[in-house]
């Protein structure tokens, strides 16, 4: 039996290892490519060990940008960062408040309100893109951060997540708060919010990455290069018309684009696990 188990473990690790390789190899390749000059990549014989052009590539990407676009990646990253943060934070605020209303208050058409929120799950940006564009344009929000952020804040995922969580909070906590003289907002602030930290962290991770990876919406509503996000920037670098694609800069940008989401996951995961271990209801 022991032999058998060892053999099975080996197979399991082999399969897992292959999975990791498939996912990780392209990333590794991007990192390697960001350390060579354009010629080495273009001739098709790029080595699999890092080259010596990293400093030059990263400096150029961050502060100057590609040869044609001439938009520094640093600025694009800042735009993406503002957008992703705006979406994540805005969504958390809106959804925690709407879930609070739907779960803890009885008002006319509460059920209807909940279902209306629920239905928006079926209407992602891609589906409602024309009306949304029209509204944003009419409000004069094209080429602004608000225009980038606001339409993506409104969706049901967060509300549903918080609603599910609030339903698991025992009613007695609310009742105890009532007897302790805490009104609805004090209950929210003193009890519900501290208990929701882990849910908030989870939602933040999901929404930050969702916001960071947005492509279609920023592509539509930003025209000025100063409002460009990094995802669009990468795309622009790859599709050049006449000149040779500067793969080393594109790869450098891609690597840079990965950094903030990875940081968010690493940082938040700690809080996430800590919360999971500590929370008990």
């Amino acid at each position, binding site marked *: 039996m022991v032999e058998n188990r060892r053999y099975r473990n080996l197979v399991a690790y082999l399969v897992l290892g292959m999975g990791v390789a498939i996912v990780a190899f392209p990333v590794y390749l991007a990192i390697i490519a960001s350390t060579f000059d354009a010629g080495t990549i273009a001739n098709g014989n790029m080595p699999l060990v890092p080259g010596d052009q990293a400093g030059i590539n990263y400096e150029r990407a961050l502060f100057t940008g590609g040869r044609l676009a001439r938009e520094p990646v640093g600025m694009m990253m800042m735009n993406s960062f503002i957008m992703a943060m705006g979406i994540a934070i805005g969504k958390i605020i809106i959804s925690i408040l709407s879930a609070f209303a739907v779960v803890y208050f009885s008002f006319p058409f509460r059920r209807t309100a909940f279902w209306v929120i629920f239905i928006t799950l079926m209407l992602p940006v891609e589906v409602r893109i024309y009306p949304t564009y029209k509204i944003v344009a009419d409000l004069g929000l094209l080429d602004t951060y608000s225009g980038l952020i606001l339409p993506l804040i409104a969706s049901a995922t967060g509300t549903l997540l918080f609603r599910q969580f609030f339903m698991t909070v025992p009613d*007695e906590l609310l009742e105890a708060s009532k007897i*302790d003289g805490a009104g609805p907002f004090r209950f929210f602030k003193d009890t519900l919010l501290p208990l929701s930290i882990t849910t908030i962290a989870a939602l933040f991770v999901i929404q930050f990455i969702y916001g960071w990876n947005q492509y279609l919406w920023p592509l539509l509503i930003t025209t000025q290069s100063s409002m460009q996000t990094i995802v669009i920037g990468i795309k622009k670098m790859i599709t050049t018309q006449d000149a040779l694609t500067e793969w080393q800069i594109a790869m450098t940008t891609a690597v840079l684009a990965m950094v903030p989401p990875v940081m968010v996951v690493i940082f938040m995961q700690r809080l996430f696990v800590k919360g999971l271990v500590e929370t008990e209801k």
Partner: protein
Amino acid sequence: MAGVTLDTVRKVYAGNVEAVKGVSLGIEDGSFCVLVGPSGCGKSTLLRMIAGLETISGGEVKISDRVVNEIEPAERDIAMVFQNYALYPHMSVYDNMAYGLKNRKTPKAEIEKRVNEAARILAIEPYLTRKPRQLSGGQRQRVAMGRAIVRKPQVFLFDEPLSNLDAKLRVQMRVEIKRLQRALGVTSIYVTHDQVEAMTLSDKLVVMSGGQIEQVGTPSEVYRRPETRFVATFIGSPPMNILPGRVEGPGLVSVGGQMIKVTDMREGLTPGSAIEVGLRPEDVQAGTTGTSTLTLDVDFVEELGATQLFHGKVAGAEFVVQASTGQLPSDTRDLTLSIDADNVHLFDPQTTKRLGVA
């Protein structure tokens, strides 16, 4: 300190479900009142209406002569202990106890004084900085009580506070609650479905069933003279035996042809009419020393350690006799039971009311 008065209090839920059907009850200042009954009898609903957690559909609730129907829970000057303790999981024990006082803007020094005092009374001083999850069930229970004590309320409300504890701890906490209530002298209303808790804790025992009060009295009154068949079988463990019988004459009934003398029997009952005869398992003895006798067909014997339960049939009806271990041989098949006329309870088979001396 204050008493609590309920005047035809009703609770009707959506769909016309009447959970509490017009309950009137006076609870004296400083007394310990226990509401007991099976689940769904409306006892918790009643308590929650007193607390202000449920709206009152009809009638009036008064706390120390003030009608509180429309008053917020926090303003009613009550404190409540919940079944699952309902401690704030993210706050320390100290903050759990202090939270209510902070919300009413009590000065910091006063809060500290009161929390420390409560902690001393409940012996939870070493745990003040801990979080509730780091405490055992019994300690959490104490914190929940501490949270109630620091408020110095006029009334304590307990909603099955011991049912999440294991049996041993339950007995211990029961004693402590009683001692605490005596020491503080605060009017207390306690809801439980456990009749032992009800008997041991209460000054005033309220037995409820189907949204109505069945009987109110001291524990011994309720035990000695149950007013309805429901109370008779609900209070006391094992429950009272109920046998089908016949009225034979003044002070005399029969069960399966065997005559039984009764002290507490209403006058003017028609001889020959059906009647229910109640006998507590602990009130019947083996032998012939009493005023009447019955024969029991023993099926099996349950050993409880100090006592034995003899299960069997009397005149075709289930019957249980409790006897001290060793008093009777365990292999007894037929048992002659001796009954004292003072221990016989009679009930009307139709109304289930007691047919005692008016």
